[in-house]
């Protein structure tokens, strides 16, 4: 029920955006080589990919990773199983693209990595509302795996099962990471809320 309670608002909003039948048609057309159909799919879901990669932060260029993700999708569109969630598929590619980027960075000499780690994340979006800024600092405090789960759950509205498939873990592990992350984010929300009473959020 936790999932149902937590996802009720998200699920409704997400279902409204998905236009599944239209999406399936576009996917089939794209698989048949229709470039415009693929562009339409990118227009529908590309922002979600960029948003996820931006919020994941780190010493990576989110725009580059988003391009890489969408290009991979273009190359592998034929392997996508029609009828499944296209956005979840894109986010799976994005997740793995980022994992590979992390591995490549680890291959860099330790000294260089230390320098990179101190460089402000180039993908961090500038500005934003007060809540967004507070949440960004909260996310930065989270370990990588917890941050991934939080962003996929609350940012993208995916179910525990979908997140488990993307991150190749057990559902119980997803729930546990979510539980741990929520503890940190609740503190952020509590610190943010007293100064924003009456803001309507």
């Amino acid at each position, binding site marked *: *029920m*936790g*999932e*149902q*309670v*937590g*996802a*009720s*608002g*998200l699920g409704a*909003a997400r279902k409204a955006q998905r236009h599944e039948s239209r999406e399936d048609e576009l996917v089939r057309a794209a698989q048949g080589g229709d470039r415009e159909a693929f562009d339409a799919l*990118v227009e529908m879901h*590309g*922002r*979600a990919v*960029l*948003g996820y990669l*931006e*919020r994941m932060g780190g010493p990576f260029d*989110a*725009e*580059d990773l*988003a*391009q890489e993700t*969408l*290009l991979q999708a*273009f*190359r592998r569109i034929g392997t996508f199983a029609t009828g499944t969630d296209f956005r979840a598929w894109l986010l799976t590619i994005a997740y793995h693209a980022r994992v590979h980027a992390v591995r490549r960075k680890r291959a860099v000499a330790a000294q260089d990595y230390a320098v990179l780690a101190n460089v402000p994340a180039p993908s961090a*979006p500038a500005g*934003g*509302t007060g*809540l*967004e800024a*507070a*949440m960004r600092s909260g996310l930065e405090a989270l370990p990588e795996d917890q941050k991934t789960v*939080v*962003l996929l759950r*609350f*940012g*993208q*509205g995916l179910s*525990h*099962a979908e997140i488990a498939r993307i991150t190749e873990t*057990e*559902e*119980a*592990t997803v*729930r*546990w990471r*979510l*539980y741990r992350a*929520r503890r940190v*984010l*609740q503190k952020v*929300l509590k610190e943010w809320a007293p100064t924003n009473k009456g803001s309507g*959020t």
Partner: protein
Amino acid sequence: MNCEEVQLHLEGCGAPLTPPSPPWGEGRVRGVAEHLRQCAACAEYAARLAAENRVLAEALSQPPAEERWQRVKAGLEERMALELAWRGRRHRAVWAMAAAAAVFLCLGAGFLAYRHLKPDAGNELVSDKATSGVGGQVRAGQDTLASGLARLQEEVRTKQLLDELEQLQVLFRDAGDADGRSVAEDAELYVERILALDGSHPDQASEILAGIKAAGIHQRVQKVRESIADDAPAPLRASLELAASTLGRAVFLASEK
């Protein structure tokens, strides 16, 4: 089901991590719902969590800045164009290979058709080649014989081999060597025959040369040369060397044929 369990469930962690809990069953979900209806504190807790979820969703699902998204799209357009161009090149290579294969197939089919329409074409070709090859060899052999014979005759004349052989006969006679004298006389006779050969009639020349070879005069001169003592006069040894060399070349010309 107690409040702690329900709240853990609501927060996302259904059970302790180790061992990993199985996915929530229908019974557990019904139990949580029933508990929420009966327990005001947990219902309030659930409502608070739901509100928290909404805040988190709102904060974390904001779309990225449009400017950044447009940059991603522009970059993606370029990379996809490159990708398609690369695919085009790959297809061109496939087409080129297919065209080359088709040309080879046509050539092969044409050759088979030619063989089919003219079954002895291949044999004719081979036999023609063989004939021309043999003819060439014969012509080359004749050229070799004529030129070799001419050189040999020229050498006999310049080195005055006949005079040398007459001198040898005198020397052997004075020395009382009848065998040596006989060999020198026979050698003179064969050298005269060599001088009389006509290179323009190769068959005839070959026949006579074969006769000289069969007579074994070359071996007989060699034996005489080997039998004379090391302290024999130098002109004697030189004359025998020259005779043996000349007759040896004549035998070689006969073998070449």
